[in-house]
């Protein structure tokens, strides 16, 4: 039993388990508090320049991470041609910096706008700290240890996939640099926080997606067997 095994072989299970149980607990016992707690209503000028870069940057990066972690072979195939590897790395770097700019504006806004500051809980501070660590270590990885999409597919991916088989192979990541390890560990801290913070709002990501196909108008009837009924989609 060593530290690596502790932090990357055991703790991930604990954190994810807490996150899942916590999510179910909050959703079933107190859905009323499930909200993105948007503060656009209080301040919308800095938020405009923070929210767009942050969300679009971080979502695309997140999707890229998920693809690399789950199907490393697809990524290695793409990277086989050096030009494509460069494009991917540069695009990743740009998106990362976009996210960082957005995040810094978020933090600046929380600190300087008195209305937003008054609405800031310690959980929000924690959220911002965790995100800042994640983005900074991510960017540091990309800059200090080049071609991360390649070596990640050969180290983090197999370790990550081994987590799913309940047989964590921490050896794959044991030799990664410290910054990378912080990045990985902090990702699990982030998952841990999901049910307890405003992070819950992205567990509602399918809301706008279902909206695309649902009819405009909704009626609900309060029969003993509750039913929700849509009146026709407008043409």
């Amino acid at each position, binding site marked *: 039993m060593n530290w690596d095994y502790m932090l990357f072989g055991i703790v991930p299970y604990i954190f994810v388990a807490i996150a899942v149980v916590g999510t179910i607990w*909050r959703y079933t016992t*107190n*859905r*009323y*508090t*499930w*909200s*993105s*707690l*948007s*503060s*656009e*209503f*209080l*301040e*919308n000028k800095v*938020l*405009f320049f923070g*929210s*767009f870069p*942050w*969300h*679009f940057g971080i979502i695309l990066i997140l999707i890229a991470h998920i693809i690399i972690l789950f199907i490393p072979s697809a990524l290695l195939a793409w990277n086989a041609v050096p030009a494509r590897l460069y494009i991917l790395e540069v695009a990743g770097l740009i998106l990362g910096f976009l996210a960082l700019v957005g995040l810094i504006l978020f933090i600046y806004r929380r600190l300087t706008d*008195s*209305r937003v*500051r*008054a*609405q800031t*809980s*310690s*959980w929000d501070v924690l959220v911002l700290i965790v995100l800042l660590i994640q983005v900074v270590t991510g960017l540091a990885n990309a800059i200090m240890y080049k071609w991360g999409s390649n070596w990640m597919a050969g180290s983090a991916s197999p370790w990550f996939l081994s987590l799913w088989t309940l047989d964590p192979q921490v050896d794959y990541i044991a030799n990664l640099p410290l910054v990378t390890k912080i990045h990985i560990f902090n990702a699990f801290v982030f998952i841990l926080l999901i049910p*307890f913070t405003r992070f819950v*709002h992205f567990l*509602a990501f399918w*809301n*706008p997606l*279902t*909206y*695309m196909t*649902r009819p*405009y*108008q*909704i*009626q*609900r*009837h*309060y*029969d*003993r067997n*509750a039913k*929700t*009924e849509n*009146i*026709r989609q*407008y*043409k």
Partner: protein
Amino acid sequence: MDVRAQLSMSFSLDKCIGCHTCSVSCKNVWTTRQGAEYMWWNNVETKPGCGYPLAWEDQDRYKGGWELTSSGSLRLKLLKGPGKLRTLANIFFQPNLPTIDDYYEPFTFDYDNLFNAPAGDDQPTARPKSLLTGEFMDKIVLGPNWDDDFGGSPLYATNDPNLKGLSDSQKLCLTQFHKLFYFYFPRICNHCGNPGCVASCPSGAIYKRGEDGIVLIDQDTCRAWRFCVSACPYKKPYFNWNNGKSEKCIFCYPRLETGQANACAHACTGRIRYVGVILYDADRIEETAKQPDDRLVEAMRDLILDPNDPAVIAGARANGLEDNWILAAQESPQYNLFKKWRIALPHHPEFRTVPMNYYIPPLSPILHQAKGDQGGTYDPENMEFFTDVELMRIPTKFLANILSAGNESVVIEALKKQMAVRMYIRQQRVGDLGDAKVQSALREVGLSEQDAVDINRLLALATFNERFVIPETHRESKTTVDPRTMYEKRGSVGFGVKKKEFLGRSW
């Protein structure tokens, strides 16, 4: 035909005295919570004026309501261009959302200082304190009735979006003290037939109740996307900045379900409000909302069904409406005001949300100007007092911009009918107008003597039970709540419930 029932309210603008009793009762019952201080589910505005939130009627700015696309379909103004895809693009930042500065910064006063100030040479003062930040405010710059009674102000009245299409001399009246006109305009959520708020919500949290048409926001499902605030052209959903949920007028449903009148209507000092059931055809809502501007009011009247028609009654029964609801629909003041007598009109029908509350336009002094030779229209020497409503001080064009999408004829009809009723009653009481003249006035607007008596009764004399014809809801047969726990659950419908302390914060 899909017969549905709607609880609806009418306002007789002639009688509103602008006392704000309604707003205060509503606030005391529903919105005295943190995050809700700035919410006025019921508010009363001075017209002409900018309203609350500031200039809410200016949809070029707020993008509320629906518009007809070039292909003739209905689209939310908010979703111009790509339609619903725009919701995806704007989900992280909504360009059309008003901010708290369009309403006002909620405040209290430092009353403590009045009692506890140390002895000194000056009188202690109570400085305003922000409820957002807890800090002292230099000065209060906006409030819910900021332009109350400022009917002639060059700043507020002249910026009323409803002044478009008025002649220069009519606009001039706004700023000349002796020609000035203004009236009060109480507003609640219209519980629309084609609500923009429902249609815009990505979470599907907002819905129209099948039984009574009340539009509610499911507080457990709302995720603070805030699209309803932007999409409602009347700006009646409000975002609670404290707990991240949108809230809106609930038509006092816990009161109406037990047959009581809404808090605002119950308290109304001027007794200007009427509440009742109307039956409408849900199949024709879309068609109604698509009518051209000048047809909108008529189309909305066509949507309302005759509660005495056997086919309608059968349709209502088939849709599960109880007999007490059908009876209430037959005795409804709403049906009479809006459809039978045609003296009530919808608020801004051109927003195409098919609003379900109606307004009786106010009469006003005939005198535009005391003397005809100053370019005015009224000559007291040679003209009679009961004369053309077109000469009234409030321009009919202005009323039409508010109540009928610019269609003056329906406004004039409603005004003439009220005038004919007055003439009839005056002839009864004073007898100085002459029967022939009164009869011809009634004939011109198509009212019978009985109608005139009934209208006078309802508008001037009606008692509580005539103004409010509210059927009880059969909750016991129509509830998702276990009937055995209803006694304990009583009073717990509403907002801000279920907060628990855990890990140092309330969840």
